């Protein structure tokens, strides 16, 4: 082509102005979102950080003075270490349970559902059509002492702590699992759906029995979805307070409940702000270690 071009062309080649590279375009595209985040995340976060260092002896009525009180953090952690532990424990358990429930579900929808695929996907997303709060309240009814679950378990002589489900840790975790299941299923579905069925055939052809085929091919290839799903479940679950509020008691309260009550009930702004930052740091640390361990380059 080019050789022919050289042979044929005669005289000076016409000057074609190089197309102007629009280097500014990416920045322009970043601008709206960036402004939004700056206005509603970065500035409030800085404000919150400042609040976390206020003199804790102040109050909403008398106002707070900036005292660079790093001790607020120590106090917050010391006082609420149990709540942090519970939050991480509940969130971790929730993540494991949603994974155990969600992986087979996502697998079935992606690979085995045939023409029911879209219907099943809609079923997964359907809960989002009603509010989070309403759905969790519904669980309150379902798990109530006179509700269907407790009476069925009683009829089957399954022992329950204090003879009830509502206001127990299992109820809170059940609510969390229910609420975050779609966040696990959708990314898993997306990565399993992309899985080339010929790779599974190739694995079978190469002497991999079904379990090995899953462990060596399906699971590794769905890791991006698995990592995304676990993060999307763990992070909001660790900060959740609605489930503990509605389905538990103060004995099941998570760090989110403490932050909520420090901010809105007690008005202890410095402690609430310090707790918020500690929560953020803890989650970041957990996520960092997790992603490093799982080691999927595709995610981070």
């Amino acid at each position: 082509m080019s050789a022919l071009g050289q042979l044929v062309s005669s005289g000076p080649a016409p000057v074609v102005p190089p197309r102007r590279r629009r280097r500014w375009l990416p920045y322009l595209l970043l601008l709206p979102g960036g402004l939004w985040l700056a206005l509603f995340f970065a500035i409030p976060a800085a404000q919150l950080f400042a609040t976390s260092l206020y003199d804790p002896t102040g109050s909403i009525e008398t106002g707070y003075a900036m005292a660079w009180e790093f001790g607020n953090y120590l106090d917050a952690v010391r006082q609420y270490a149990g709540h942090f532990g519970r939050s991480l424990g509940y969130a971790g358990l929730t993540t494991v349970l949603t994974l155990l429930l969600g992986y087979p579900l996502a697998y079935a929808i992606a690979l085995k559902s045939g023409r029911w695929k879209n219907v099943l996907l809609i079923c997964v997303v359907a809960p989002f059509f009603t509010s989070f709060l309403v759905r969790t309240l519904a669980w309150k009814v379902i798990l109530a002492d006179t509700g269907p679950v407790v009476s069925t378990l009683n009829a089957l002589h399954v022992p329950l702590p204090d003879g009830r489900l509502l206001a127990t840790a299992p109820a809170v975790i059940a609510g969390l699992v229910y609420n975050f299941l779609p966040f696990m299923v959708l990314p898993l579905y997306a990565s399993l759906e992309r899985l080339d069925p010929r790779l599974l055939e190739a694995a079978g052809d190469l002497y991999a029995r079904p379990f090995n085929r899953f462990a060596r091919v399906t699971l590794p290839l769905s890791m991006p979805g698995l990592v995304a799903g676990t993060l999307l479940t763990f992070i909001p679950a660790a900060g959740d307070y609605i489930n503990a509020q509605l389905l538990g008691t103060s004995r099941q309260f998570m760090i989110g409940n403490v932050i909520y009550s420090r901010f809105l009930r007690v008005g202890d702004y410095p402690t609430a702000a310090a707790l918020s930052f500690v929560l953020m740091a803890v989650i970041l640390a957990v996520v960092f270690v997790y992603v490093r361990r799982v080691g999927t380059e595709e995610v981070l």
Partner: protein
Amino acid sequence: MELRLEGVTKRFGGFTAVDDLTLTVPQGSFFALLGASGCGKTTTLRMVAGLEEPTAGRILLGDQDVSRLRPYRRPVNTVFQSYALFPHLTVFDNVAFGLRRRGVRDVKERVDRMLSLVRLSGFGPRRPAQLSGGQQQRVALARALVNQPQVLLLDEPLGALDLKLRREMQIELKRIQTEVGITFLHVTHDQEEAMWMADTVAVMDAGRIQQLGAPTEMYEFPASAFVANFLGQSNLIAATVDGRSGDDIQVTAHGSRFALPAARCRAVSGEVLLGVRPEKLHLSSDSAPDGYNAIRGVVTDACYAGVSTEYLLRTEWEQEISVFAANAAPGGLLSPGTEVVAYWHPSHSFVLEKS
């Protein structure tokens, strides 16, 4: 080990993909299943691999009936059409996959030996995505061959390669097959590829084998009009058998008489098709030599293709006949409108049943 299919049928709903297929692939042979897409060749291969279950019939490896065995229990391996290499594993781990699943020892030596056989030594640590199409193809081949299967199944393995690379890989595959001595069952729609590589070719159409044999035998004396036109090109002229004289059969087509050896006739009475390959035809401006069959025609088209020129002639009965003339004769190209005589040696023609 010998691979035998006995009355194998595969139906998908109401569609019969493979229809009562019986064939034997001898130990150590390079066997090609040739056909257009949808003819059932890939389904046949997948049934041998265990990826589809036959609706009826048996598949035997040696004396063992493998028809209902799961793929991981069969001593066969497949080179998939689009390679299906595991993207998350390195080249080495891809090739080692089957060995490790079977708990074979000395994995490293075997994989290294196989990578050098397919000329990919040193590529072990790479990921499939970092390889070219031809290299991926060779990894797929190594991944299957390293398991020393009884039969290696190749599903259009060269289909994704460009022409030059495909030729190279054809030679390479042939070399490897000779070297390892494993039975190769090769599925392809490329008739040149099938003839070039295989010792035995089976032409499939509509789930059945139309003809099976050595490439030369099939090309020189096709069994049906389908095979005559699927394997290369043929000029087929409607004719009637007049009778026999000695070892020859006489036929009449559109008022002209032709003779050919009875051994080259699939039918010896009634309405038939007289066939002759385009490259067997010679052109002359006046008359044919003695002992040759000849037809008159007018050149309607001439396509110069370097090594040969492809002419189209219109006969007196308005049929288009194609002639491949080697560009070795003195004189230039014949221009359209030229009246010519096309002649051929009687032993180069054949007679087929009119279907």
